[in-house]
């Protein structure tokens, strides 16, 4: 879908996307009914690209991460769509094949690093476990070697190999999680708010570490979060998620200087900046409950440009100069925009 994007890395054609997500639908079945957490998500990502996925709580950010890892648990269900990593459709894999694909093709850095390590196992043993589960033919020494160099690449001392999680600080634990995530050199790294519990200095160190590894491995990185500041400093492209739909997908420069979707605009102008001290511009209203989505466009009750059609028809994503936007304000402009691309 998004193949007209700017060509800043040594890509050769449109099919070199390392990650393709096509029409991904995820729903949760609850006693109160079916909640559609993701609806028709499509995006492409090239090797080495950094995509930011932003949205309020309940917008489907974490569901998206779990769906990409094929880790949605009941009552949730992936209803359709494909997640293709490096030519393999993850949704078509068996449980066992998927186990192998996690970490070696796509890896996940979870939100609370404090809670994702086993407190009674040494860091080193947890790393060896991860390698052994994927390839038991590697000798113990090679595994150790690989774990040590992974720790080194996240700037941790080799002593950490022999330590327990409680002996490490929050930032160090988060870096251990990153080290485990890159042990098998994945093609795609999904980081779900990797720094939300850390303070700014540590946050910068962790993000620098992730960036260094992205270059080393040539992997694509998806950064999930709601901190637009972090997005501005880190990613190349931003996808704005609202009630399970991508409202806009643009490069970070376009997003900050000239966002198309009213929700994206409201999000950008709610940001604190140095120049507008003391001005607060929140977004009025509340994010909709997924069980009771508004008719038509899910943002229309909070939108200041709401039109009649917004209340009845759900806008489909259209492409404008390589950007994707789902809004009736821009639906009509589609032919004009694609003519520009062709000419």
């Amino acid at each position, binding site marked *: 879908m998004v193949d007209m994007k700017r060509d800043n890395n040594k890509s050769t054609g449109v099919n070199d996307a390392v990650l393709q997500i096509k029409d991904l639908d995820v729903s949760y079945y609850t006693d109160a009914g079916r909640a559609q957490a993701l609806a028709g998500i499509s995006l492409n990502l090239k090797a080495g690209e950094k995509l930011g996925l932003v949205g309020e709580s309940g917008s489907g950010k974490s569901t998206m991460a779990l769906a990409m890892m094929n880790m949605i648990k009941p009552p949730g269900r992936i209803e359709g769509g494909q997640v293709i990593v490096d030519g393999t459709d993850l949704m078509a894999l068996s449980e066992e094949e998927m186990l192998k694909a996690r970490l070696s093709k796509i890896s996940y850095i979870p939100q609370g690093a404090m809670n994702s390590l086993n407190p009674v196992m040494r860091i080193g043993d947890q790393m060896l476990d991860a390698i052994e589960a994927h390839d038991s033919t590697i000798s113990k020494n090679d595994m150790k070697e690989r774990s040590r160099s992974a720790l080194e690449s996240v700037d941790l001392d080799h002593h950490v190999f022999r330590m327990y999680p409680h002996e490490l600080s929050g930032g160090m634990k988060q870096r251990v999680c990153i080290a485990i995530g890159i042990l098998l050199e994945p093609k795609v790294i999904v980081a779900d708010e990797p720094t939300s519990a850390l303070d700014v200095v540590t946050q910068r160190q962790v993000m620098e570490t992730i960036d260094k590894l992205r270059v080393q491995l040539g992997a694509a990185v998806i950064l999930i979060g709601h901190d637009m500041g972090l997005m*501005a400093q880190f990613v190349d492209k931003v996808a704005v998620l609202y009630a399970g739909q991508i409202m806009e997908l643009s490069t970070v420069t376009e997003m900050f200087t000239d966002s198309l979707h009213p929700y994206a605009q409201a999000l950008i102008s709610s940001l604190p900046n140095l120049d507008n001290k003391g001005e607060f511009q929140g977004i009025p209203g509340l994010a909709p409950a997924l069980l009771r989505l508004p008719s038509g466009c899910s943002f229309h009750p909070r939108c200041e440009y709401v039109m009649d059609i917004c209340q009845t028809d759900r806008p489909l994503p259209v492409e404008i100069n390589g950007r994707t936007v789902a809004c009736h304000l821009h639906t009509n402009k589609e032919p004009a925009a694609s003519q520009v691309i062709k000419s």
Partner: protein
Amino acid sequence: MTELLEFKNVTKVFSSGLLTKTSTTAVRNVSFKLAQDDPTIMTVAGESGSGKTTLAMLLLGFIPATSGQILYKGTDIKNLRGAERMIFRREVQAVFQDPFAVFNPFYTVDHLLTVPIKRFKLANSKSEAHEKMIEALTAVGLHPQDILGRFPHQLSGGQRQRINVARALVLRPKVLVADEPVSMVDASLRANILELLQSLKEDHGVSIIYITHDLTTAYHVAKSIMVMYRGTVMEAGSVDRIIKKPEHPYTRLLIDSIPWPDLKRRWGETDIKAREAAIEDISEGCKFYGRCPFAMDKCKVFPPLFQLNEEQAASCYLFDENKQIASEKLSELLPV
């Protein structure tokens, strides 16, 4: 004139161990004042472990200070008894970080509002209590009919955090301690809560101590700031000056590491010298010694505060040509 609230050289040491005592100085020699009739918003900023929450606990009287005095309207809070203590309890209120944990899930949110009204006998009748609740909820921008009678899980994080502010507001406080009130609230609702804090100061004359690690929001909401690191005040003064022109190497690192949502301001060029693991604590000297790119020999002795200009002071020997300022004089530099 007596001050509303005054910290006089307050130090808090936590010790543990039965035979070999190990102790941590969580707050070291901190002084500041809040004036009786000039409501202000003061930020206490610092990363985790800087002692900012300990400061809040001391201020609320939850833990006693190891040395120094905390005065409320001229009386040490540890000597407050009876009616005076109730007044202190009523007039110094808190809003905490986690808008989920402060609610009892078995009660409707009304409970959180009625308990303080009953406890402090603020209303003579049920209908008067109800009126007070409605008034407070409206003041924080909520529609009472949407809120009353609901259970906490039926409300969003932003709504819950506003109810917490409403609860404090019912008691007509003089001081509000807000410990990271927005860190768990969605970015789009953050602005609303901060706006609310500001209007509490303007319309209700409440002085606010805003405790945070997020310097962007501090800049927007506060007048003055104290930057803490491992229990000591590193730099203090006007928030405008410190965010725009930080002087202490630690504050510079901190401000340089803020990811500003601004494409023209790129993330810090200053290198982070030491990884947090490699820092040994030199207990007598500057706490930032191990990470400081300008560390000198004399930093092994604790640096006093040096006054940089009329609204800024830093605890660092880089500025030792400036005049020293005693810790208890620091609040004179803080604008209100």
